[in-house]
């Protein structure tokens, strides 16, 4: 194995939410970086700062002055990042000879293995790993998601998002010395043929990544499995029960682990979808906070979304190339729930304009929502002590309904449900258009 010094050309993500100034500044302190004008740069080269001037930032200058200096040229420069990549001797040259065609947009050495969904750049597998992990690292650093010594529970369902999250976090934690204690936290809803299989995957992940696993089950927490709930209430509103119970189960599991934070695998597509759904539902209060990277800071355990700017397609590709062990079957009780209109719409948008997903998130962040928008006042549930804006938390209300046979208790207006008779579930009926991701995957 020999080491080659490779140039990494990184197209500057000027419109990227990873803010350029902080990103450049922090990287400049750690790595050798310099810049070259883009082909589209309308400025004469004399108007641009010299390479030396830009690549030698005043180390003591931690103010915005230097980053502002860089920012004014941002649209016209490409960052060239010098870093060392290990590869087989001669691999690069053989690849270019063999391919005879296009080379990776970033390293210009190897043949491209994929078109990056976010930027449409054709890049090789190795460079994809680097940019994918580096972006997540930047999100973590720029948003100060973690502090050294914190205990972090990774919500793990065994699906691709949570598997990639657990893998990448454990890698970054080691590489960048975050100093975190990572744990896997799974919820066993008690869905035969679905959760039992996916939990097996999480158990394998526990060994593969060396992360301790904690499983909390609905049966232990609430005395009911989802199979039992569905046998009583049918296939209507079952996702409401599952969603409410799981939210609380995750918090309870995290508390058992004495975790400081809970991280979930919500990706950019999920957040963009939530922004749209909140607009369609007229829910301004949720719209104002659905793009927060950390939520629940007033609750028992804050939740973080390190994949806030990571595209679902890139997570899929990463999991595929890295041959990660994940489980990919839809929930038995919520098949095809992905095909909501909003989800389809986002996929169509992405096809035409890949940037649209990030644009929706940015819109969500920039909406001028009045600070006087009324938020529910948080208290605690009289029965179980969980955070609640009402006398009893939603889970206790639903549980009471189940235990007393009052199946509609706590089920408010359900989409489209009024059209059908209660007690006669119609699994074949047209699903409501406005819906979220299925409960089986939403929180993980």
């Amino acid at each position, binding site marked *: 194995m020999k080491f080659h010094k490779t140039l990494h050309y990184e197209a500057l993500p000027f*419109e990227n939410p990873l*803010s350029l100034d902080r990103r450049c500044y922090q990287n400049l302190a750690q790595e050798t970086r310099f810049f070259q004008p883009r*082909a*589209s*740069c*309308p*400025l004469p080269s004399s*108007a641009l700062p010299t390479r030396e001037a830009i690549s030698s930032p005043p180390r003591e200058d931690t103010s915005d002055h230097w980053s*502002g*200096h860089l*920012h*004014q040229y*941002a*649209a016209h420069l490409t960052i060239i990042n010098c870093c060392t990549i290990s590869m087989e001797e001669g691999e690069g040259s053989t690849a270019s000879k063999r391919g005879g065609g296009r080379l990776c947009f970033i390293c210009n050495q190897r043949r491209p293995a994929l078109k990056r969904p976010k930027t449409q750049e054709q890049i090789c597998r190795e460079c994809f790993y680097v940019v994918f992990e580096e972006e997540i690292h930047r999100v973590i650093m720029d948003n100060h998601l973690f502090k050294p010594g914190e205990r972090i529970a990774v919500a793990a369902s065994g699906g691709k998002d949570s598997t990639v999250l657990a893998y990448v976090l454990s890698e970054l934690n080691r590489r960048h010395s975050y100093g975190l204690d990572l744990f896997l936290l799974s919820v066993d809803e008690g869905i035969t043929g679905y959760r039992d299989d996916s939990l097996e995957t999480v158990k394998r992940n526990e060994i593969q990544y060396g992360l301790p696993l904690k499983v909390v089950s609905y049966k232990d927490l609430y005395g009911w499995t989802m199979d039992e709930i569905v046998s009583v209430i049918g296939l209507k509103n079952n996702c409401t029960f599952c969603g409410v119970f799981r939210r609380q189960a995750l918090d309870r599991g995290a508390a058992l682990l004495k975790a400081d934070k809970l991280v979930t695998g919500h990706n950019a597509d999920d957040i963009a979808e939530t*922004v*749209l759904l*909140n*607009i*369609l*539902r*007229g*829910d*301004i209060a949720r*719209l104002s906070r659905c793009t927060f990277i950390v939520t629940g800071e007033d609750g028992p355990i804050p939740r973080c979304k390190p994949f806030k700017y990571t595209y679902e397609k890139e997570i899929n590709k990463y999991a595929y190339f890295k041959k990660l062990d994940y489980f990919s079957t839809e929930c038995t009780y919520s098949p095809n729930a992905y095909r909501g*209109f909003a989800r389809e*719409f986002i996929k*169509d*948008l992405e096809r*035409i*304009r890949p*940037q*649209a997903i*990030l*644009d*929706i998130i*940015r*819109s*969500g*962040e*920039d*909406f*001028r*929502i*009045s600070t006087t*928008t009324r938020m529910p006042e948080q208290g605690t549930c009289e029965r179980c002590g969980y955070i609640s804006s009402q006398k009893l938390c939603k889970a206790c209300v639903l549980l009471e309904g189940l235990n007393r046979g009052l199946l509609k208790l706590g089920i408010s207006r359900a989409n489209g449900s009024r059209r059908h008779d209660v007690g006669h579930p119609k699994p074949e009926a047209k699903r*409501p*258009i*406005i819906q979220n991701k299925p409960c089986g995957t939403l929180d993980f």
Partner: protein
Amino acid sequence: MHCKSLKNWDASKSQGLPVFGFGVAFVDESTIFPTPSNVASNIIEEISGIVSELGHALQELHIAPIETAFCKDLVDGQNCLRQLLDNITDASGKEDFVQYLRMLSLQKIAVDNKYTKVVLGSCTSKMAHQIISATVKGQGFALPADLQYVDTRQEIPVLLPLRDCNAQELGKLCFLDGLKTTQVFSWPPAGINGLVSSFIARLQDENPSRQRTIVRTAEKLKPFSFNKFTEGYYDFLPSIVRAKFQHVKHEEPEPKFLCPICGSPLSESEWKNVKNNNKCPSELEFFVSQCCRSCNFQILPKEKGKLELFYSLLPSSMTDRVEGKDCIGRRWLQEQIEEFLITDDIDET
């Protein structure tokens, strides 16, 4: 509008609003759409017919080709327009750009004919489309600017009295009252705008009130200072009615900059970009820095040569909107001073 304009009582139940005169303006976009000349003239004839049926209270029908936005002679204007559109590769960018030119043409008609307001027929369905479209283009910050009943960003204020009526209702009204309508030039569904249209149509099928819900969500966003008439404008109205029109708070600060192409207020991060480009020597660079992200992405060409050509062809009313460097410096300084000012809200104790 015709009925309401005839009597004081109809114009305002409080009798506070005077009778107003009005005209009809039509922007002829046949240069953009490759339609046979007889089709274009038929459309114009039809519109003339519809307007003439409205009666004698009507002042005038103004028909102006869209190229009048360029303030050059028509042939020059046509060439400019064609070259500009050829340089926009994004389908939605092209459509949006034509919409901005349309507004410039309407403003020109209004100024030339001494009208004091421009009234648009944008309804709830159009607004819902605009909201989703702006959201997916990353224009969340500027979104409330285009949704209010009043918009005084332009020289002649723009009003949207039909904002709360949906297209189906308006269609029914036309049918019941025997009002004739006609199909004018329209873009084939393409790009982001086309996708949004089909999405909105599907939502409407699913729930007829969905469009209204979308508009209601956006209504809750904070409007800008230019979304109201100047202070004192409504003083002649009874105080109980006045409150309805002045819902935009006076203390709402002026947006720092408006994009010279689309007129959107720039968000904090965009404004930061303007500040950082303040020292750039080139006029073009300066112009580009003041354009919003969306226009930068979907309208401005990426190649340097094409960008220069594009800039040289833009109507002066767009390029003139660029704020001077002194002004940016002043705003910046003002912003820094404001950080250290003590406001009334701060408790002195």
